[in-house]
């Protein structure tokens, strides 16, 4: 083999190699053997920081699988999906999907659903502040314009539909309530959840009816009100034929100030016959 003359690596080369040594992605550094345990100090700090960050974001998942398993899973997750940013509250968006296909965890069918809920809870907790829409502002609109309103939700608001009653599991685990845990019916069917940080800064997880959830989903996707009201019901005449469920849901969204603003759709889109 050709022995190359030793040259000083550039900073970029050195950082790339050092990063590889820390993450186990390949060691290109010429490291004296005595240095290996020292590099391991940095690698340990990295592992512990990521494990801790994920553990704070997914406390119920960690409690369900135990610290040791969670640490291994966090390590495997970090190997495939390392953080792109130093703001570690943003780290973990792909964890629910990772858990869903993580072979060692398949025996806990609901684990990924709990992870998905916890990610929404974490988002709600850390979402930026935003001044909320005063519902009084809408009373100034005429009814035709009201139908064209597209709402902008508070950045903490999310909706999640899960196959398992992850909200009950999540609460029972965090409250260490064994009786509640035993009472959960895993086969009860899907849950339709709304997660938010309310106007008092408290994170809330609420169940919605499937209709209210679908209506809310459309509003959060930025659909004009009359689209969201009419969708799936054969109605296309604006606000009038709205179901009681949707009107009640909208009234609640407005009264608890889940929106931070609204715009008017430029056209009404599809018109009725």
């Amino acid at each position, binding site marked *: 083999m050709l022995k190359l003359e030793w040259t000083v690596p550039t900073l970029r080369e050195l950082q790339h190699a050092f990063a590889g040594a820390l993450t186990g992605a390949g060691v290109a550094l010429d490291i004296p053997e005595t240095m290996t345990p020292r590099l391991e100090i*940095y690698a340990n700090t*990295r592992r512990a920081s990521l494990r801790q960050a994920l553990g704070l974001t997914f406390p119920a998942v960690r409690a369900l699988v135990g610290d040791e398993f969670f640490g291994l899973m966090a390590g495997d997750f970090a190997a495939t999906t390392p953080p*792109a940013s130093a703001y570690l509250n943003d780290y973990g968006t792909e964890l629910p999907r990772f858990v869903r296909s993580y072979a060692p965890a398949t025996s806990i069918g609901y684990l990924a659903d709990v992870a998905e809920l916890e990610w929404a809870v974490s988002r709600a907790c*850390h979402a930026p*502040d935003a001044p909320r829409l005063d519902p009084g502002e809408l009373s100034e609109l005429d009814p035709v314009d009201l139908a064209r309103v597209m709402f902008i939700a508070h950045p903490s608001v999310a909706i999640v539909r899960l196959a398992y009653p992850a909200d009950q599991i999540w609460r029972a685990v965090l409250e260490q309530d064994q009786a509640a845990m035993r009472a959960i019916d895993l086969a009860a069917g899907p849950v339709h959840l709304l997660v938010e940080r309310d106007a008092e800064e408290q994170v809330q997880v609420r169940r919605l009816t499937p209709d209210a959830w679908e209506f809310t989903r459309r509003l959060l996707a930025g659909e004009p009100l009359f689209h969201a009201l009419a969708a799936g019901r054969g109605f296309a005449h604006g606000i009038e034929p709205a179901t009681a469920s949707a009107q009640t849901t909208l009234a609640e969204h407005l009264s608890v100030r889940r929106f931070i603003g609204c715009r008017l759709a430029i056209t009404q889109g599809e018109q009725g016959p």
Partner: protein
Amino acid sequence: MSLTNGPALTSRPIPAQAGIGLRFAHHQAVIATRPQVAFLEVHAENYFGGGVTRRCLEQVRRDYPLSLHGVGLSIGTDGPLDAGHLARLAELVRDFEPALVSEHLSWSVSAGEYLADLLPLPMTEEALDVVCCHVEQTQQALGRHILLENPSAYVRFEHSPIPEWEFLAATAKRTGCRLLCDINNIFVSAHNLEVDPNRYIDALQPALIEELHLAGHALRTLANGRQIRIDNHGSSVSPAVWALYERALRHLGPKPTLIEWDTDIPPLSILVQEAQQAERYLRRAEAGVDRADAA
């Protein structure tokens, strides 16, 4: 934001007294008991979001001068700074008007991956150019000067010709930044790299130093039998570090001093006691300066 609804917020300078690092575990205790410390320092990244944590910072900010300590900007990475990270930091600085803003002479990002530790830089002209460029970019984005902190180290690069204190002084000279001198880090690095910590302290330029850090560290024995000091901020300040601090104060004069504690966080009262201990050293140093002035 609600800050503007509270009492007028002025960017009070931090006196040459002792403060503590505020972590989530002590939010409520600090708000409830308002301990007698000169200032609070927080990790900037912990407040990038909104909600309850931000409300807490707004509340303590009304009662204490604030120092924002960044741990994730990765000033030393050869590559672009994370623009989103810098923008969030700038927003925090705008909203909270901290008296001090600091970051580390280290790197944490390579090829877009965050490595979740403060990693060592080779002290070369090339690294100096990278660091100065990023410090300038940061100061421009924040509209103010920052402090740069010496990290703790466990390895040294073969090609690292510039002493760290010279590297930091050169950065300050070229960018107008100032320095945060971590006494514990000097002690830990000096032990691990087998150099003299006193030499580092004596080489510091007093006018460049705007803050000092103190913290505890741990002693571990490696597989090869070599003892190494780990900068884990998990205990009280060691006697050797207090001694080095005393030497630093004699050389630098009194400077704002922070007690950091990040793992195995004790009750707030223990942190306040550590700050009071630093305060005693500061008052002695002040008396020393007065005597020197009178002479």
